[in-house]
Each structure stands twice: as structure tokens, then as C-alpha cells.
């Protein structure tokens, strides 16, 4: 009996050990960014491997924030991502409510259009969007970037929100409608309070998407003071003599917002993202 139990325990330990060895391997590159960022400069460029350096310092953070243009990139990214998120979620919520609550002509066609544009590789659109935005005088403007990001985030937001709104009982808003509430009021004070975890997940998705986006920002914005974090960061390591200590410090700052949001809310977010994306 105890032999069986010991055998079971050994097997359990093996599974747990293997799983966490793989997981730590997965987490290592991100951990390494952080470890590099708090290392003194001469130890970053040393010939021997050391997991944790002898002295820890925040010197590279000070240099990055005081002597480079990185703080400007962070501010630009925050402005663009936040405005995109709010606008995109708002207009997607209206559209998703319409798809969820109404049956109307062309509903199927329009829904397919939304799903298709979610699949459509916007990489291909970069050339025509550049020409189009050039004529609208939106190249090298924050507004241009925001509009482009709204267009690329709306399809998935509509699709995700639709899944959440479908799970809100219709009786709730029908009651409010009969009581004389306008549709906007129904959405704000009946649907939102019930569906907020889904709306929050959608907002976070949209924020992360705009925060991470590289190609559109690279093409539409060339003036340094308008660049966002991904483009600014990439310009740091394109050079021949790369200051890896500063690149890794900037990388930590670029990762922090999404990392915090996801780790705190992971249980709510992940199931929503996964089921939203592969819903049968």
C-alpha cells in the first residue's frame, strides 16, 4: 500500500517537476530582461555568465528616464492607447448590442464582414493606408495613429463583446425598454453592470493591441517626438553599438503595463480571450 503511494508520489513529483522546469524556461527571457536592467553597466558587458549580479543598481533607469527620449515615447503610447481603447470599446459596444439584441436585414452579412476583417491581415493595408492618410494630412499625427488603431481593434472588440452580451439575459433590458429607457441608458445602466468583466477584458485587449503595435506606428509616424514605445524601443537596438543595459531597461518599462494588468486579472481575462477567439 505504502509502496503504491510512494510510487504515486514519485510520479506526481516528476510531472510537477517537468511542468515547472518547462514553465521556468518559458519565463526566463522576460526574467532575464529584468535582471539585466538592474545590473551595473560593466557587469552587463562582462565575458562570464552570472545569473544575479553582485551589486544591484537602478542607474540604468535613471539614465533612460533622464537622458533619453524614452519618457516621451511612454507618454505618446499612453495617450494613443487610452484614447483608442475608450473609443473602440464604446463604438464596439453599440455594434455588439445591435448584433446581440436585434434581428434585422443583412445582419448575417454584416456579422461576417466584422469577423472577416478581424481575420484580414492589416499588414497588407499599410501601403494604401499610408497613401490615404497622406492625402488626409494624417501622416505624422497622433490622431492618424489613433484612427488607424481604432480601425484595427474594432473587429475583434465587436466579436468579443458579442459573446459577452449574448450571455446577458435579454429579459433585463427588455424590462428597462418597456419602462421607457432609451437604448443608451439600457446599455449604460442595465447591460454594462452585468457584462463589465467582458467589457474590461475587451478594453484590456484593445489597450494591449495599441500598446504593442509596431508596423503602423513605424510607417505613419517618422517625427521622433511623436513616436510610440515599440518604435522608439526598436530604434534603440537597431544601431551597431547597442547599449543593451538601456534597451533592457526600456523593455522592462514597455512590459510593465500589460504584465501587471494580465497577472492581476488573469483568471477573468484568459478564459474570455480563449473562448472568444476559438468559440465554436
Amino acid at each position, binding site marked *: 500500500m505504502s509502496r503504491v503511494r510512494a510510487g504515486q508520489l514519485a510520479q506526481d513529483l516528476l*510531472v510537477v517537476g*517537468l*511542468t515547472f522546469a*518547462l*514553465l521556468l524556461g*518559458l*519565463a526566463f*527571457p*522576460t526574467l*532575464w*530582461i529584468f535582471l*539585466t536592467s538592474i545590473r551595473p553597466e560593466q557587469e552587463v558587458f562582462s565575458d562570464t*555568465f552570472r545569473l544575479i549580479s553582485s551589486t544591484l543598481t537602478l542607474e540604468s533607469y535613471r539614465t533612460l528616464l533622464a537622458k533619453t527620449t524614452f519618457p516621451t515615447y511612454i507618454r505618446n503610447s499612453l495617450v494613443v492607447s487610452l484614447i483608442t481603447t475608450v473609443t473602440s470599446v464604446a*463604438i464596439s459596444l*453599440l*455594434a455588439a448590442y*445591435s448584433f446581440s439584441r*436585434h434581428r434585422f436585414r443583412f445582419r448575417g452579412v454584416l456579422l*461576417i*464582414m466584422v469577423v472577416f*476583417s478581424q*481575420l484580414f*491581415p492589416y499588414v*497588407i493595408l*499599410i*501601403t*494604401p493606408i499610408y*497613401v*490615404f492618410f497622406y492625402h488626409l494630412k494624417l501622416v505624422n499625427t497622433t490622431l492618424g495613429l489613433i484612427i*488607424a488603431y*481604432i*480601425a484595427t481593434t474594432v473587429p475583434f472588440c465587436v466579436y468579443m463583446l458579442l459573446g459577452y452580451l449574448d450571455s446577458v*439575459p435579454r*429579459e433585463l433590458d427588455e*424590462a428597462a425598454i418597456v419602462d421607457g429607457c432609451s437604448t443608451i441608458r439600457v446599455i449604460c445602466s442595465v447591460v454594462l453592470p452585468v457584462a463589465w468583466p467582458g467589457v474590461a477584458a475587451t478594453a484590456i485587449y484593445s489597450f494591449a493591441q495599441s*500598446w*504593442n503595435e*509596431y*508596423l503602423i506606428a513605424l510607417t505613419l509616424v517618422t517625427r521622433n517626438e511623436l513616436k510610440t*514605445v*515599440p518604435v522608439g*524601443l*526598436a530604434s534603440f537596438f537597431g544601431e551597431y553599438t547597442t547599449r*543593451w543595459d538601456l*534597451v*533592457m531597461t526600456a*523593455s522592462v518599462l*514597455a*512590459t510593465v503595463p*500589460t504584465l501587471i494588468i*494580465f*497577472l492581476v486579472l*488573469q483568471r477573468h481575462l*484568459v478564459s474570455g*480571450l*480563449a*473562448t472568444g*477567439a*476559438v468559440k*465554436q
Partner: protein
Amino acid sequence: MGVTPLPRLSPAKPGSGGRQALSGYRLRHLIEPYVLLLPALSVLLVFFFRPALFNIVLSFQRISLFELGRGGKWVGLANFVALVQDPLTELALRNTIFWLTAMTVSLRIALGLVLALLLNTLVIRRWHLSGLARSLVLIPWVTPPVVAVAAWQWLLQARYGAVNQLLVETGLLTDGIPFLARSSTVWWAITAIVVWRELPFVVIALLASLQSIPDEIYEAARIDGANERRILYHVTLPLLRPVLAVVTLLITIWTFNNFLYVWLATRGGPGVRTQVLATQMYLEAFVNYRLGYGAAVGVLMGLIMLVFSVVYFNTAFKKSLGQA
């Protein structure tokens, strides 16, 4: 949940209120759906579908980045003829299909399946490690793609990179290898970056599907005398197959068009070793200033993706759209 309020079908107010409420209700159902859709659809039409069509127009023109004000010159199929004759196109197409897509997608599915099965084992749940495990899995995914490339460039750096230092110190190498600059190793290095960053999506999607399989099915199989291996091959994997198909199609579509990883890791180099369609498109349009030619590459990519999208729709949506 509280008590769901029942809809009051007859209005409370007496008199004409009833009729007005009814016609208002009907009007609401007639035009409101379209009004609510208007903002989202106009954004999509103007900034998504219009550019997509305009891209086709551009692909029949010769137009330089510097003469946008003047507009382009119609050249018929010249861009496509040049595209077909360019030996770089074949290389980029092969790289995109084999390395960037087939290689990374199959590795992600294989590794993702292993990790999802491990995370779904009873012992992880019994020892209350699920939350911790899921957080660790997510770490690559919450790392922005640009940061992912930066991190791997630093890890793989020939002299100061951790990977090379570890390989040299354990005696596996005598000198560090510039993995991203050597043509024999560069694609493996890019594969590592893509697989690392994009693996979590596969794991999380498969794990969600695994957890939706009811325990009774496993119990029934065990009572019938099936061992773990048979349960895996005859119960778990068959039940996972629909989700596996959808996930494979989705990541194939996303990866085929990816620009960022190759561009930031190598700019398509060394030489043209890692050129893919997306980087070719960007190079032609914004480095060589041939917008029409870049648009033609985009049309080629769009046509290939159309095939995948149709397959995706047939796999994932036929059922749900049929019901709607």
C-alpha cells in the same frame, strides 16, 4: 443572481400611452439596429475595406512615395509581371510558407499540446498549482513582441549573450555564435522567438478546451479498463480535435502575415536569407519607394490568405451561422 424582473407587457399608464409606446417600440426595432452599427461600420468601411480595395488599384500603378501628390501612372500588369520574374519573390514565398508559418505553427501546436496536457494533470490541480502555472505560461504573451525580439537578440548576442556564455562555459562551444547573423542558424533563432512569444495562446486555448471535457467521460473509460495512454489517444485527442483545427488555422493566418519578428530580428538578412512576403512588401513600398510594387506583393498575400480564411469560416462558423 437576483430575481429577473419580468417584462411588463401592458404599459402601466392608461390612455394613449399604450399606442405611443408600441409604435415607438416598433420604430426602435426598424432603424435602431443600423444606427447602433453606424459608427463601427463606417470606421471599418473607411479605414479597412476602402484601403483593401485601394490596394488593388495601387497594384496596377507605378507610384513613388515622393510623388503621392501627383498620383500614380497606370501600368497594367507590369507590377505583377515584375513580381513573378523577381527571384526574390520565390525565396520570400518559400521562407514565409516553410519557415515562418509551417515550422513555427507545428512546433507551437506540438509544444502547446504537451504543456496543456501537463497543466491539466490531476496533480497540478490537487496541489493547487493551476493559478501559478497559468501565470507563468502567460509571461511570454504579456511581453510585447518588440520586447520579445529585443530580449532574444540580447540572449543570443555573440559575446555577452546569456545563451552563448552558457554554451561556452559548459564546453559545448569554444566561441560564441552570432545566431541571428549566420545564415545556417538564423531561421532557427527566428523560430525560437516566434514560438516562445506565441506559444501561450495555444496552451491557454487548448487548456480551456481540455477543462471543458467532463470528468465522467474519463471515469467511464477507466471503468472500461482503458489505461492512460489509450485514454489520451482515444478520448482526449479526438475530443480536442475541433479546437485544435481552429487554433491551427488562426495562428497560421496570424503568422503568415507577420512582419515584426523577421523585420526586427534580421531586417530580412543576412543578405536576403530571411526575406518573407511581409518584409518584401515593406521594403519595396517604404525603403525602395515603389508603392505600386509593394501593393502587388500585398495582393499576392491577400489572395493566399483568402484561401485560409475560407477554410477557417467553413471549420469554425458553419455551425453557428447556420443557427443564427
